C-alpha cells in the first residue's frame, strides 16, 4: 500500500481524505494557502506545506508547487478531492509523468468526459441514452436551424466546455435560434476559451439523479446505486438523498447498467459519477460524468457501508474491486444537507466570518463532515461550504426527522448560515412527500421564504433572550470577556501575522 499521500485540496474534503488515510495507516501531506494556516487539514495531516497566497490560482491551482511538495516529502500518490485540480486532465498527466500515482482517472478519461460534445458522442456509441440533440459543433445558421427543427422546441443551446450555467440559452422558437447560438458562442469563448456549442432538447422540470460508480484497473466496474440531487439553488445542489424517492427497482437496474457502460466507454478508473436527467415519465438521459469524488458521496457510504475514499486509494494502488455488483445492497435511507456560510434570506449571499460559537449535533444516525471550529474565521477566498450534515434512518421519514433534530442541535454563532433554510426545506410538504424536481425551490418559494414564522417558539423566549444578553453584558462589564476569540488573537498579536512558514 502507499506510504504517503499528498492531498491537493482544502476544507472538509481534505479532512475527510486524511481520516480514511489514517484508518489505512497511510501518512498524509497537506498543502495550504496563506489563508488556511489555521485550517483543520493542516493540523490533522502529518506534514503540511504552504504553497502560496490565498487566491486559488496562486495556491491550490498551482500544479508545479504541489508536485514540488510531493517530491520533497516523497509522497507516492496525490488525492485531488473535488473542485480545484480534480478534473484537470493536465494534472492527471503531470502526476503520472512524475512517476507518482494520481488517485483518479487517466488524462484521457477526464478529457473525454470534460468536453460535452465528445462525452455525448462516446455515450451514443456505447448505447447510453443521451438528451436528443446534435453530435457536432454548430458552426452555421442553416445547420443550427435544421438541428433545432429536428429536435423540436424548446431546445437548449449549450457550450461544449460549459459549466455553471454559462454559455447556455433556452430557445422556445425558430426565430430566436441564430441569435442565441451566436451569443452562447461568444460567452463560451469568453468563459472557456472554446466556442464549440451544441443543441439539446429542453427537458422540462427534470430530476437530477446520479449514479456512483467504482472502476478498477482490471476492467471491473460496479455502481453503488443512485443519489437524488434535485434540490438546488443557483444551479448548486444543497440537499442530496439516497434512495431517490422517484426510483423503482427496475429503473435502478437499468440506469445502473448504463452508468457502468458509460464508465467502461472511457476506460474509467477510480470513483466517478454519471449524472442523468430524469423527467416525470421516468425517461432518463445521460447529462455528464463527474470524474472525481462528489461532495455528496457520504449518503452512498451510509446506505452501502462502503468507504469510497478507501476504495479510491485501493483502486489507485492496483487492487481489484473489493465488491461485486451482486454483493451490494441499499440499507436504510440517507440525506445530506450542505451547511453554507451564507444568508439564505438574502439571495444566498456568501457570509464568511469568525465562528464565535459552535456546537455540532451528535448521537444516533448522524455524521458531520466539516473543517471549522470555534474561533476559526471562514476564509473569503473559497467555497462557503462549512460542513455537511448527513443523517441515516431506517426509513426516509426517520432520516428527515433526524435531520430536523440535528439541524436544531447544530449551533453556529457569528456568521449567517443555511441551517434555518434547510430546516424549512425538511418541513416543506413536497419534500416530505418526496415529490420534487430541480424547480423545487422556485415552486415552493412562498413556503420557504414568505411564510417565515418563529419555529417552535416556547413561551417567553424573547424575554429569556433579553435576560441572558443582559447578564452577559453585565458580566463583561466587570470582567475581561473570555469567549472573545478575536481578543485571543489580539493577545497573540505579538507574534504578528503569518510570515515565516516554509514556502514554495
Amino acid at each position, binding site marked *: 500500500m502507499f506510504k504517503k499521500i499528498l492531498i491537493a485540496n482544502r476544507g472538509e474534503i481534505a479532512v475527510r481524505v486524511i481520516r480514511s488515510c489514517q484508518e489505512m495507516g497511510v501518512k498524509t501531506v497537506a498543502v495550504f494557502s496563506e489563508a488556511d494556516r489555521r485550517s483543520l487539514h493542516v493540523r490533522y495531516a502529518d506534514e503540511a506545506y504552504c504553497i502560496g497566497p490565498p487566491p486559488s490560482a496562486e495556491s491550490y491551482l498551482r500544479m508545479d508547487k504541489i508536485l514540488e511538495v510531493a517530491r520533497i516529502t516523497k509522497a507516492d500518490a496525490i488525492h485531488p478531492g473535488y473542485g480545484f485540480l480534480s478534473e484537470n486532465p493536465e494534472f492527471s498527466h503531470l502526476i503520472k509523468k512524475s512517476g507518482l500515482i494520481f488517485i483518479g482517472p487517466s488524462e484521457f478519461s477526464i478529457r473525454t468526459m470534460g468536453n460535452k460534445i465528445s462525452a455525448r458522442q462516446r455515450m451514443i456509441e456505447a448505447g447510453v441514452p443521451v438528451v436528443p440533440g446534435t453530435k457536432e459543433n454548430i458552426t452555421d445558421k442553416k445547420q443550427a436551424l435544421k438541428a433545432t427543427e429536428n429536435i423540436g422546441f424548446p431546445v437548449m443551446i449549450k457550450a461544449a466546455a460549459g459549466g455553471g450555467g454559462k454559455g447556455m440559452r433556452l430557445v422556445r422558437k425558430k426565430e430566436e435560434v441564430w441569435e442565441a447560438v451566436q451569443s452562447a458562442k461568444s460567452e463560451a469563448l469568453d468563459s472557456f476559451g472554446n466556442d464549440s456549442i451544441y443543441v439539446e432538447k429542453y427537458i422540462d422540470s427534470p430530476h437530477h439523479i446520479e449514479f456512483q460508480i467504482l472502476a478498477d484497473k482490471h476492467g471491473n466496474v460496479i455502481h453503488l446505486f443512485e443519489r437524488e440531487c434535485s434540490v438546488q439553488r443557483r444551479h448548486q445542489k444543497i440537499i442530496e438523498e439516497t434512495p431517490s424517492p422517484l426510483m423503482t427497482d427496475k429503473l435502478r437496474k437499468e440506469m445502473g447498467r448504463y452508468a457502468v457502460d458509460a464508465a467502461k466507454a472511457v476506460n474509467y478508473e477510480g470513483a466517478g459519477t454519471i449524472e442523468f436527467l430524469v423527467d416525470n415519465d421516468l425517461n432518463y438521459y445521460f447529462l455528464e460524468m463527474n470524474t472525481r469524488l462528489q461532495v455528496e458521496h457520504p449518503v452512498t457510504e451510509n446506505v452501502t457501508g462502503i468507504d469510497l475514499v478507501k476504495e479510491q486509494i485501493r483502486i489507485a494502488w492496483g487492487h481489484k474491486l473489493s465488491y461485486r455488483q451482486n454483493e451490494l445492497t441499499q440499507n436504510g435511507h440517507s440525506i445530506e444537507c450542505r451547511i453554507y456560510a451564507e444568508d439564505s434570506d438574502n439571495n444566498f449571499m456568501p457570509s464568511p466570518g469568525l465562528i464565535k460559537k459552535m456546537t455540532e449535533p451528535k448521537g444516533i444516525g448522524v455524521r458531520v463532515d466539516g473543517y471549522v471550529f470555534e474561533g476559526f474565521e471562514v476564509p473569503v477566498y473559497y467555497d462557503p461550504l462549512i460542513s455537511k450534515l448527513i443523517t441515516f434512518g431506517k426509513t426516509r421519514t426517520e432520516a428527515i426527522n433526524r435531520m430536523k433534530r440535528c439541524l436544531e442541535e447544530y449551533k453556529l454563532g457569528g456568521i449567517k448560515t443555511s441551517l434555518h433554510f434547510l430546516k424549512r426545506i425538511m418541513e416543506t410538504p413536497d419534500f416530505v412527500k418526496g415529490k420534487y424536481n430541480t424547480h423545487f425551490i422556485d415552486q415552493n418559494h412562498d413556503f420557504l421564504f414568505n411564510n417565515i414564522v418563529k419555529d417552535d417558539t416556547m413561551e417567553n423566549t424573547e424575554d429569556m*433572550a433579553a435576560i441572558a444578553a443582559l447578564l452577559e453584558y453585565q458580566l463583561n462589564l466587570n470582567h475581561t470577556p473570555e469567549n472573545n476569540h478575536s481578543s485571543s488573537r489580539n493577545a497573540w498579536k505579538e507574534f504578528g501575522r503569518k510570515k515565516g512558514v516554509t514556502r514554495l
Partner: protein
Amino acid sequence: MEIIVNKQSIEVEILERQANELLIAVGNKKYRVDVERVENGTYSILCRGKSYDLKVIPGDNKRNFTVIHKFNNYNVEILDAEARYRKNRNNTNLDEDQSSIFSPMPGKVVKIPIKVGDSIESGQTLIIISAMKMESEYKAAKDCIIKEILTTEGATIEGNQSLILLE
C-alpha cells in the same frame, strides 16, 4: 435598563438576586428564573419548569448580541447610557453610510451596469461582484444618483473597499 429585542424596545430590571435565582421584570411581566452560565457565552435558564438553552454571541460592540435559542436568532441591544447618548447624537444623519457602496469581502468586479450621473431607483443593481465562487448583485437601497465609480469591471477588490459613491 432598556433593551431592544428584534427591534422591539422593552424595559428589563433585576429586582432580586439570591444565589443563582433572580427575580426579573421584563416589561410588565415578572419572572423568577434559575440561571447558570454553563459554558462561555451559554446560559441555561429554568423558568416555571421550562428549560431554555441560550447561546449569547457577542456582536460588533459590547452592547450588541445575537442570542440563539433552538432555530431562532434574537438580535439584542442593551441601551446603556453610552448607547443612548450616541443614538441621540446620530439621529439627524442616520443614513449617512448609504452614500457609498462597500465590498463586504474580497472578490472580483464582474459588471457595473451603471455609469456616473445615472439616476437610480431603489432596488436597481449597481454592481455585480464574484466572490467565494458565486456572483452577488449589490442594489441601491433608495433612489439616488451615481456620483463616482471607484473601480472597473474585471478589477480585483479588497474587503471593505469603497466601490461606488452615491448622492
